[in-house]
């Protein structure tokens, strides 16, 4: 590729030759020919990119906000010098250079090796690829440049952050046969206190609450919550409208954090988690437990992107046969632009599911990027409150998640409700 300097020199050379011919001035023609000859001679010298490049990463998978250490090893395997080369490791724009540089100018002799080290911060979840490695040769007079690529790529997955969820706020009414230890909100053998009731013959003596007997004069026994297992269903709204806000702070980003945190919490309790992400289509990860499921969920959440406009009721209708009876269902959605949400929630609640709606306040996220007139903002907030009230009226427990509120604090709203 010619640089601007070379192009100007060539144009000047031709112009001087032609003007020299017009003016019958041999000096001008000679200068013009000298320009062109200089370009021609410079064109003979070129560098080469016959390099062996190896990139080493500190991790293939990491969480949002973590640091990634990268080392690029460049070896000249040819028998001649590379000439002056610029080496640039292409890094996604979503990653921040924390230290070091992904750029170096080298002039390697035969067999020589050099290394580039730098540290990236990954503030955004997603599937990313480092590379290819760009190589550019510039000749001494900066007349020509030649760009090459070494198609060496390294894929990494940046998972959404997993935050602490302190309290178990959900208890299924239906036990599951196999694994898990979610406390069910029905009396039975267990460890957690459920209620007091009158003694009936057959009750073990160890369950008698002697303090209550002393106070009332009647035999009372402690009933415990039954320890059992359950499936927890997470429905994540990834529609196009969920992008409102900044790239780092928007309903979808907060939703992925919530989904990752909740799934980590329940999986730690040996429950099974199912994840459904709906955007222009429905992606469903069947309920399962364990680390493998955790990885699957995180990978799935890393790849979600806002698109489409699938209604929630279509999701609940499609998943209805897969919902375990009485299992809690988390709906993580900003609830914007979907008129089917009340019906979907009503159907779920009607089928005996405990529905928890975790709703990032998209209006407040929108305020981060757009100046909303005060009155419009107040009216929109009122409308949103109406929407949440209506959902609560259908039997869902609703969490209005504001941008500056931590997930654990937001979830406490359920406990307090």
């Amino acid at each position, binding site marked *: 590729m010619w640089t601007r300097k070379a192009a100007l020199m060539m*144009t000047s050379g031709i112009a001087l030759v032609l*003007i020299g011919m017009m003016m019958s001035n041999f000096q001008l023609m000679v200068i013009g020919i000298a320009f062109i000859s200089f370009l021609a001679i410079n064109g003979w010298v070129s560098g080469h990119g016959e390099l062996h490049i190896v990139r080493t990463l500190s991790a293939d998978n990491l969480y949002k906000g973590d640091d990634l250490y990268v080392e690029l090893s460049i070896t000249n395997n040819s028998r001649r010098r590379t000439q002056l080369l610029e080496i640039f490791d292409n890094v996604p*724009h979503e990653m921040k250079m924390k230290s070091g540089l992904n750029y170096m100018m080298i002039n390697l002799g035969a067999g020589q090796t050099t290394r580039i080290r730098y540290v990236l911060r990954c503030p955004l979840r997603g599937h990313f690829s480092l590379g290819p490695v760009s190589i550019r040769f510039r000749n001494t007079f900066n007349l020509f*440049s030649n760009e090459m690529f070494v198609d060496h790529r390294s894929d990494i997955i940046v998972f959404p952050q997993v935050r602490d969820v302190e309290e178990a706020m959900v208890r299924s009414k239906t036990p599951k046969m196999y694994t898990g230890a979610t406390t069910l909100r029905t009396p039975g053998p267990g460890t957690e206190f459920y209620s007091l009731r009158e003694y009936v013959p057959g009750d073990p003596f160890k369950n008698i609450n002697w303090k209550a007997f002393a106070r009332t004069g009647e035999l009372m026994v402690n009933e415990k919550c039954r320890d059992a297992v359950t499936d927890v269903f997470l429905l994540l709204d990834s529609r196009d409208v969920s992008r409102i806000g900044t790239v*780092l702070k928007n309903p979808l980003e907060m939703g992925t954090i919530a989904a990752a945190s909740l799934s980590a919490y329940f999986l730690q309790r040996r429950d099974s988690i199912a994840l459904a992400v709906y955007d222009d289509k429905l992606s469903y990860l069947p309920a399962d437990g364990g680390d493998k499921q955790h990885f699957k969920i995180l990978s799935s959440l890393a790849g979600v992107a806002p698109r489409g406009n699938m209604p929630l009721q279509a999701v609940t209708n499609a998943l209805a046969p897969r919902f375990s009876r009485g299992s809690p269902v988390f709906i993580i959605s900003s609830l914007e632009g979907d008129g089917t949400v009340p019906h979907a929630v009503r159907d779920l609640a009607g089928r005996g599911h405990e529905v928890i709606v975790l709703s990032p306040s998209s209006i407040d996220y929108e305020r981060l990027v*757009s100046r909303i007139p005060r*009155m419009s903002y107040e009216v929109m907030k009122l409308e949103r409150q109406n929407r949440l009230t209506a959902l609560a009226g259908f039997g869902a427990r609703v969490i209005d998640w504001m941008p500056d509120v931590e997930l654990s604090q937001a979830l406490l709203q359920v406990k307090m409700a």
Partner: protein
Amino acid sequence: MAMKPADLFARMNTHQFRRGATLFAFYVVLALLLVTLLGSFVNPTDSQLSAYDNDWDDISKFRSDLNSMGVDTHSLVSSPLLLHEIKNPEETVFIIAGVEKDTISLPRFTGDENVIQMKENDGYTTSEVEAITSFVARGGTIIVMDDFGYSSGVAEAFGIEYSGHKLYDAGAWTLDYNYIWINSSDSYKYTSNISNSWNHPCFRDSDGDGFVDLIDPDPTHPGVPGTMAISAEQAGLCAHHITGNGATPWDFDPGYDLLLNSPSAFDPENSDDEEKNRYGLGFSSTDSYLDINDDGDLTVGPAGSGFEGDMQGPFTVYIKYCLSRNCEDKTAGKAHFISDGSLLINSVYDYENLYGSQETSIDQNDNRKWALDAIAEAILYDENGTLSGGENAQVIFDESLHQQTSFMGDTYNLIYYLLVYFTSDWMAMLLLFLTLFIAFEAVIIRKTDPEPWRHVFSIIYYGFGDSRRYGYYSRANKVKQVLLSRVRNLNTLTRDEFDALPARELQKMINDPVLVKFVFEDRNYSLEQLVAVVKRIKMWGRK
């Protein structure tokens, strides 16, 4: 495995295939265009009147004679515009022998009230004609031999006009009607019956001793140098005057018997004019006629009959133009116009030999003598005691408007012509300057250096919102709708129940006179009023 037709059609319907097919078609058309364009410049037919081909109809013998006489010969393949560059025009002869094609030209500035001339004459461009006339004005000599060709522009610049019709001569023909004799007893009688041949270096012999003055040790003494013995080397450019006859060893005859082949003639009204130093020196016989109606036959048209008849001769076929009166100034420019392009073709010029497929012998003629005399008269202007040309003497043959037989020869000529034309013609130079200026601008504007590589962290600039809905949420109707939804939700009513609610009940539920008025009165609200209403709605929810 054989591909099914359906698969084939499906494959042909893909974007990739269609793109490939389009590209293929584009390059095929481009190749055809190029081949056609280049092919048009490769002329498979034989050229004629070329100084560098040896066919019977070329003029290579004339060129080789000049070379053997020590005169450099060159060909001009680009454009006569280069005549401007000749430093010694007085020692240069420019020969135009038959102009076979037109040339490319641009509109030009005229310098008069017309300002610009859009259409050029056929043949040479005006700039080229100006270059030729300028060459003559600076002392150069041109010999123009053409009949019906494209050199009329050059002739017109000297006040001469070709008739454009074939000349027949019943009184002076040989072989067949195409060959016509033009006999001139003295071609150096310009304005009187006194010959000016004394001014010609090959004729001037002041003392009459047989030695022309330039090589006569004492031009005024007949006894010196004695016996007439001039070698061809001594004779130089006048060597063709050596007869080999002991009685008359030197030919002092100023007359020429020129044999022309299918000539035309000059327009009688625009031919010789002594007052303008244009001298008619060669004429057809009185039995000649000009085939005005181009029917190939003599046609007599009685006067007043309305019938166009052919013109009766004699006609001027050779005109000599000199810048000086009677061509007395040897260094002044000269122009010879002959209305026959084939005057010097090998078969006529070198009548003693047969060329190529030539079977018919041509009669003895003075074409060679005339041509070499014209060259000698032009080059031997200096009294330097020799009949050889100076070191700068040269004869230039114009090949720019001849068809070329060599592969890509015309393409080469065209490129060379364009180069010369665009660096010599004012309009072309102006265009070239503009083109160079635009090229410079384009390079400066469009050509960018490779961007310096650096990592850009750019996610913080992203953001999405929908500002179009803000106006909708500040309308009174929307606020009203939100209030009613709030009332319905807080009173846990379904839509049907709420719609069936009597107005009085609804007023009771709202229980706020301002909001009741807002719901039931249909009027316009100012922004301030709406703000107040919204504040009240917020407060109402908390009651």
